[in-house]
């Protein structure tokens, strides 16, 4: 390795910044625009992990990612306020997901209320608008609804269970390029 190369490297990682241990960064660094490459790198990596997992584990991949997501949902929601009412729980969930996912409660026009009872099931439709999973899948040319979506599923179910103390289940009704419709079944 040439001395010039080493010097160049040292120079790239040297600054005149005075860093104190009590300094708390007040903003994200670098600027979001400069983070683009990092974001795309993470999306590519996630896509490859999921593709390989599917190749090796086949249909079992969904169970693995669902479980991982569910654990994560329970883990993160532990620190959130416990709520028995579904509306309150959805508020908490929306705070929890902010920045990566956004969703709204939705109903078809022939339904009177957002909490729907049909065929002995009680459920709520959720339309997911912003979703980092969808972006990752599109970045990698992967189909929606597979193992990476199951991670989000598990995450939502885990968080709802943790917040309400009730069992829940999430079903994909439709996946689209701009939004996805999901059914949150309450037990």
């Amino acid at each position, binding site marked *: 390795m040439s001395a010039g190369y080493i010097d160049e490297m040292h120079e790239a990682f040297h600054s005149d910044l005075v860093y104190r241990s009590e300094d708390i960064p007040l903003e994200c660094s670098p600027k979001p*625009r400069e983070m*683009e490459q990092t*974001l*795309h790198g993470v*999306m590519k990596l996630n896509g490859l992990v999921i593709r390989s997992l599917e190749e090796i584990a086949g249909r079992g991949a969904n169970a693995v990612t669902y479980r991982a997501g569910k654990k994560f949902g329970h883990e993160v929601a532990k620190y959130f306020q416990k709520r028995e009412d579904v509306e309150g729980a959805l508020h908490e969930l929306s705070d929890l997901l902010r920045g990566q996912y956004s969703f709204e409660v*939705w109903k*078809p*026009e022939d339904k009177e209320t957002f909490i729907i009872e049909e065929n002995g099931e009680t459920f709520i*439709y959720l*339309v997911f*608008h*912003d*979703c*980092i999973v*969808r*972006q*990752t899948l*599109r*970045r990698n040319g992967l189909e929606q609804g597979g193992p990476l979506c199951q991670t989000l599923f598990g995450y939502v179910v885990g968080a709802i269970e943790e917040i309400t103390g009730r069992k829940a289940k999430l079903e994909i*009704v*439709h*996946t*689209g*390029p*701009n*939004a*996805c*419709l999901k059914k949150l079944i309450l037990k």
Partner: protein
Amino acid sequence: MEIHVDKDACVGCGLCVKDCPMNVYELQNNVSVAVRPNNCMGCLSCHEICPAQALEHRGIYAARRHYIDIKVCEMLRKVV
């Protein structure tokens, strides 16, 4: 939600009718008509599938698009 179908562009293939999970469209005289626009939840599957680019939604929430590369867009902007 306001949905507009360009009647001149629509080729009457019925793909939007089949693909829309909310049964928003119906084929009438070989042209798609948005008969239940209030049932639309904004997935835009119909836009992706329509071969004639005949559809327009107004008042829709456009999800953030992280998968698009800023550098590719900059290059495209130079040529388009």
